């Protein structure tokens, strides 16, 4: 069975762990519990009749206390950049992490998601910024781990892209 390593990247408290837990276990907690290091979760999905196991590397959020180690990224078949719609600064972190990931693992599929669409009225990330991300070639999705909105679509899109990608690092 095909296994694909996917790294969840983003600033702290953007909802990386919540997205993974919603996707893998369909649970959500409002309580913020910071991730230190890595937690790896697995979930099997079917893409184009191919069953693949997604190895979801839920990395700690990047901030001034912790920078993401390149070693965690190595071997990734794809990655997800998570941003928090209510904090515009998380876009800058996502941009920096995308460069780190590209430098470390090369050109692999990735998808970005702006989380917390359940509080859309409080978003700081405006349409112009989203447009600029799309102009960079970023697939930008909106979702809410809290409500489960856009979560399945997020992983399905990346899985599809990874399956379609010319090189699969770890089949």
């Amino acid at each position, binding site marked *: 069975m095909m296994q694909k390593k996917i790294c969840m990247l983003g600033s702290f408290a953007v909802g990386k762990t919540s997205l993974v837990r919603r996707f893998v276990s369909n649970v959500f907690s409002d309580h913020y519990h910071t991730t*230190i290091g890595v937690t790896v979760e697995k979930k099997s999905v079917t893409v184009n009749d191919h069953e693949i196991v997604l*190895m979801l590397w839920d990395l700690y959020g990047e901030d001034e206390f912790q920078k993401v180690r390149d070693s965690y990224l190595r071997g990734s078949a794809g990655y997800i950049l998570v941003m928090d719609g209510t904090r515009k600064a998380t876009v800058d972190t996502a941009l920096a992490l995308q460069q780190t990931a590209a430098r470390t693992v090369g050109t692999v599929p990735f998808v970005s998601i702006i989380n917390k669409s359940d509080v859309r009225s409080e978003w700081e990330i405006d349409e112009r910024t989203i447009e600029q991300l799309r102009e960079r070639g970023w697939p930008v999705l909106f979702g809410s781990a809290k409500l489960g909105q856009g979560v399945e679509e997020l992983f399905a899109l990346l899985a599809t892209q990874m399956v379609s990608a010319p090189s699969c690092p770890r089949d």
Partner: protein
Amino acid sequence: MNSRNPEFTPVDESLFNRVLLTLDIAVLERNEDGSAFHLRGLPPKWWHLCFGLAEATTLDSNRCSPFLREYLMNPHPVWENKTGEIERSGPWTESQEQGGTMTLEATALSVGSKNLLLIERLGSHFEHMRDIVQRARERMLTEDITTKSYRKTQTRLIGQLEASERTKDDALALLQHLGITALVLDERGYVTFVSDRALEMLGLGSNDVVGQKLERVIPFQEQDRQLVQHQLDGSSRTGSGGPFRLDRARPQWVEVEIHRDPRHPDRRIMVLHDRTEIHALRQALNEQASFHDLVGKSPAMLRVYQLVRDVAQVDTTVLIEGETGTGKELIARAIHFSSARKHKPFIAANCAGLTDSILTSQLFGHKRGAFTGAVNDQQGLFEAAEGGTLFLDEIGDIPSPVQTALLRVLQEKEITRLGEAKPRKVDVRVVAATHHNLSEDVVRGSFRADLLYRIRIARVQLPPLRERREDIPLLAQSFLGQICTATGKTIERLNPDTLRLLMSHAWPGNVRELKSAIEFAVISCKAKEVLPIDLPPEIISAPVVPSSSVWIPLPNRDEKSRFLAALSDAKGNRTEAAKRLGISRATFYRRLVELNIDSR
């Protein structure tokens, strides 16, 4: 873990195991080809929770978490190059076989020829560090929320401030556009705001006004300032007063409106209304309603006032014509006091009923012994009026010899005292008056034509009161005020019925008769207003004169018809006809000539 590696033999196994147990770490040795990791020494107590039985000495990669498996499979320079350095995996979360998780960290190192892997369970120090990071991040999130809240509040307040500024600007623009003269005073009486119109009115700049005490800004007179201050100190929501005079190079009159600032009860909004123009107009109106001592604002009297002003500008003799009691002497005084001679004497002489010798002596003076009783030299009225005006009333009654002497004076501007031969130069303006029709007197031969032409260079015809009835209320009120002041009585007004009677009376004695009637009424009056009963009986009992026949001026043709009708009714008796028309005999004669009526 299948077997113990025989190549690894510690010097003192029991010591080594005690060290490992104390550090709570597992030590594994990597074989040459890297295909297996063998446990060295005793594993820590937690080992079996993740990796199975402690007796197994080789790590089963199938039991490893994906993270550790990948870490083991990845190349590590520290094992390849034997550098003697160490390489940490970073923390990862490992699931326990009985549920739950623990956080581990692997370290790759080389010791001599051996490649070692240490696996450490991150314990209380790590949890402490995690707590610190957790708290720090929670704090950052909280501060982020607080900052956003502040920012939102700031944005809202800025918006409100901008809206408020816009509203203020709009209100100010409106205020300026409306040209309201307004000032705002703080609780200490200092000006905090002034409108452009107010600055314009006060002739000051904003810096001269804002921050200054009110009395330094608006030059009220002391008494007015106290009144304004009283209003400012008052507790009523609004008040007004004035007009007050502002002491400036060009005097201004203002009315003051004071409002309590609805936002700050101790502050005041002062609105000034420039009443200078109204004041000037009112003054002009008052001046029009009276001229010197003359009262009346009827068109006829306004024409008289203008004529007097015109006549006063020249130095010719003037003839004043009018019925008795119309105020001919007042006109003469007005001419004098409006003329350049106003600082010189005004002498009035009544020429009626005097013999020619007495009148000659009075007018021209006499020398001692000129006649019996002339015990001293005496100057005449001409000399007494030197430089000024001599008013000769009832000039139509002057005896013929005096007319001749008067003509000489007017022509030569010199007089000769009685009993003297030498003439004396005089500079006197003569204003004459008569209730006669002097033209008729000339026709009758009782008045010299050349004298008439000499004195009638300028003419003022005074209308009888019945021809200017609209002046009766003004005159009556004026007399009432004068008489009350003189008598000390406090009568405030004329009863409307009283006024109606006054308006309907024929007033053959004209203004003089009216004044007498008011004097009579004031003496009789016992109330605050003059009642009809207070008037003289001839006014109360007199039949009401049909207004259209007497005091509404009619076109000449109608007037001629009325005169002819009156003559016909009176069977040609002119005195009777004049009485029927309610006019004097003299006026009747004059109008007959003017209307070209031959009554014979």
